[in-house]
């Protein structure tokens, strides 16, 4: 054992002369990156030249726009839990990454972005394609740095990977000047294990977990809210044990969706603006609110002055800055969810809250009658988004990865999709980035090729990253694209109908023929306008061995309900 360790250390310190660009590619291999996304250009050309020699070990996915590349990297990261790697050139290449970086920052997605920069001698001279990407990306990265000397590359990238993956994950950006990419130097690489100024996982205070256990054991009407923290900590098993042992009804944020299977009896559904009736209404009746790995986003809480004022709040969270940010925690429990839940499991008593759980079932019944039946089983009239999702569930049996874009179809997809496995719901939650879905689905499919990946997209978002159909064609990724076409920017139109006197300002879309467009990318297509053809089309869509595009024309002016109107409290949720 001892001699092995010594050998390993020796290996790590062996140096090799190579260029900065070759070092970058070598480090990706050391970090076990098999797929990277990007778009070449002047200032990143040495890196692309180095990638050319390593095509057997690193698949580079050439997107058609840098935004497509970074959303694909996000989809890859969310499906695999590995960091997504993304390359772009200086100037416009780098600025085109920014939306994806901001999206990854707010949704805690690990990304390592590597941008080329003009030669160091030209920095600050307004050179061709020069932009201050460090300054521009600073507010939306977990960490970033600029490299002007090749000898700094190994340490910077080691730090970058460590920071992106550890603690609360996030995007990092390393900007490397072209001369540093060309520069030869003595290469050696040692991955980072810690940084002295950085505490990725706060120390666990057992007394806070003991206090939490007392409250949970004494609670009469407890409610668990779970978020992506459960998934990021790989704590799904521990979490499920906790839910089952304590018998506490549990509701999810849209990034927490799929951490607990949707058919679990104690899974009471979705929180927030378009969430389920029970969890929203009863948030304001519970006596103990147990939030795990979630950040009380305003789309979850509605009006904070009317949010769970009666409840004792216990907040399990890895990021100290989230404690008391939006909702005051009576008992904050800092730490990685896997570790804190494991401790908690030993202290909580087996329980069932039958009468309290009954309340959720009553609410579910009301919602079923007033909203869900109409949405999932309409007999007449136009097709609904919900009935499409319902049939998809029948054929996926909850095993697929569902990637949604942003808008009405996203809310419907999250509300009604069934999930039996974790890391299966991929959506732009915090930033709400239209155009996310298509490239993210491609990235997810490349990350987990054995799973069925279905992108559910609206006709607005589809046209924001439609060019990535070419990337799907080029990579031959077998990704399923479902377009729910209502010829409107549906969510904005819904708000215009409800809150702006039906003044449909710039929300009607006069669309091109998507069938012709997608055929132009050599992807098989089908369009459904009638209910009688829907199920067969979906069956073919799911079973087709390859990429496939299914367009379903849905009701133009359907609304998503329930809804917590903007500014209202969660218990003021409207069913119609």
């Amino acid at each position, binding site marked *: 054992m001892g001699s092995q360790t010594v050998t390993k250390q020796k290996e790590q310190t062996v140096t090799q002369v190579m260029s900065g660009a070759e070092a970058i590619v070598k480090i990706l291999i050391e970090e076990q990156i098999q797929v990277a996304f990007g778009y070449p250009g002047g200032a990143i050309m040495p890196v692309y030249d180095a990638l050319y020699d390593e095509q057997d070990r690193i698949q580079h996915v050439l997107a058609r726009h840098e935004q497509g590349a970074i959303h694909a990297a996000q989809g890859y990261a969310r499906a695999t839990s590995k960091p997504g790697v993304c390359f772009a050139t200086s100037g416009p290449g780098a600025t085109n990454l920014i939306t994806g970086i901001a999206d990854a920052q707010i949704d805690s997605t690990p990304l390592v972005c590597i941008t080329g920069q003009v030669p160091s001698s030209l920095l600050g001279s307004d050179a061709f394609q020069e932009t201050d990407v*460090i*300054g521009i990306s*600073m*507010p939306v990265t*977990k*960490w*970033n*740095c*600029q490299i002007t000397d090749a000898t700094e590359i190994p340490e910077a990238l080691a730090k970058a990977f460590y*920071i992106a993956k550890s603690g609360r994950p996030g995007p990092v950006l390393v900007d490397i000047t072209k001369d540093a990419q060309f520069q030869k130097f003595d290469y050696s690489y040692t991955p980072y294990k*810690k*940084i*002295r*100024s*950085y*505490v990725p996982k706060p120390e666990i205070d057992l007394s806070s977990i003991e206090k939490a256990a007392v409250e949970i054991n004494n609670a009469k009407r407890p409610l668990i809210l779970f978020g992506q923290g459960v998934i990021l900590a790989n704590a799904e098993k521990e979490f499920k044990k906790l839910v089952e042992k304590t018998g506490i009804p549990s509701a999810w944020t849209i990034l927490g969706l799929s951490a607990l299977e949707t058919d679990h009896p104690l899974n009471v559904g979705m929180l927030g603006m378009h969430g389920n009736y029970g969890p929203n209404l009863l948030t304001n009746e519970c006596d103990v609110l147990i939030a795990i790995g979630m950040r009380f986003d305003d789309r979850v809480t509605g009006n904070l002055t009317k949010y769970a004022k009666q409840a004792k709040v216990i907040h399990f969270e890895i*990021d*100290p*800055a989230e*404690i*008391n*940010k939006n909702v005051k925690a009576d008992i904050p429990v800092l730490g990685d969810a896997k570790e804190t839940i494991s401790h908690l499991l030993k202290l909580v008593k087996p329980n069932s809250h039958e009468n309290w759980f009954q309340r959720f079932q009553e609410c579910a019944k009301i919602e079923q009658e007033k909203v869900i039946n109409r949405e999932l089983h309409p007999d007449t009239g136009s097709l609904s988004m919900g009935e499409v999702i319902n049939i998809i569930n029948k054929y996926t049996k909850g095993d697929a990865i569902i990637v949604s874009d942003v808008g009405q179809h996203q809310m419907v997809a999250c509300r009604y999709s069934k999930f039996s496995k974790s890391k299966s719901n991929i959506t732009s939650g915090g930033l709400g980035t239209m155009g996310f879905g298509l490239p993210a689905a491609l990235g997810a499919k490349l990350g987990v090729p054995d799973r069925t990946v279905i992108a559910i997209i609206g006709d607005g978002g589809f046209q924001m990253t439609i060019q990535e159909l070419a990337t799907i064609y080029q990579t031959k990724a077998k990704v399923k694209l479902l377009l729910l076409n209502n010829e409107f920017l549906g969510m904005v139109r819904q708000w215009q109908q409800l809150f702006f006197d039906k003044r449909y300002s710039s929300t009607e879309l006069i669309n091109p023929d998507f069938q012709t467009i997608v055929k132009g990318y050599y992807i098989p297509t089908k369009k459904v306008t009638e209910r009688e053809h829907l199920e067969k089309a979906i069956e073919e869509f799911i079973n087709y061995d390859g990429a496939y595009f299914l367009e379903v024309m849905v009701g133009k002016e359907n609304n998503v309900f329930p809804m917590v109107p903007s500014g209202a409290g969660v218990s003021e949720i409207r069913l119609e």
Partner: protein
Amino acid sequence: MEKEEFTITAYTENQVGLLHRITIIFTKRKVNIESLTTSESEKEGIHRFTIAITETEVVVEKIVKQIEKQVEVLKADFYKNKEVVQQEVALYKIPTKSLTNGIEVERIVRQHNARFLTIEKDFLVIEKAGFRRETKALFDDLKPFGINEFVRSGRVAVAREEHGIGEAVEKLLAQN
């Protein structure tokens, strides 16, 4: 909750761009920074930010957590005025001829516990360290003689406790 003066202290690595990373935390919340100084701290290689703002305690607490969250920040904390010993330094440049009209300027400088830094042929520079109100009082007294230039430094402050957060920083460094 009332707004009041707070002093934020952060121990950090010495890193290009960290100043920007810290100031954008304020910009994002539209909070004005009244003064900001950085210098080396008592610990080798570790820098120290001292930031003065007027805000509610709730906002200050959230800002400080965001500062401490930055990878290259070791520790951050905030203090009310009564919890720190603080000073600012001011320089006043006035015409040398003001000395020729009697002893008035010398008397003012003595009275304010200030001192002459330099006396040149055409101008002289007076230095005063103290609280904002003290440097302001000297400014008002010197004004009749004509102030050619006036500058005041940002606040520097140490906590009114034996170690302050320096101890927590020490602990963090010892772990690594």
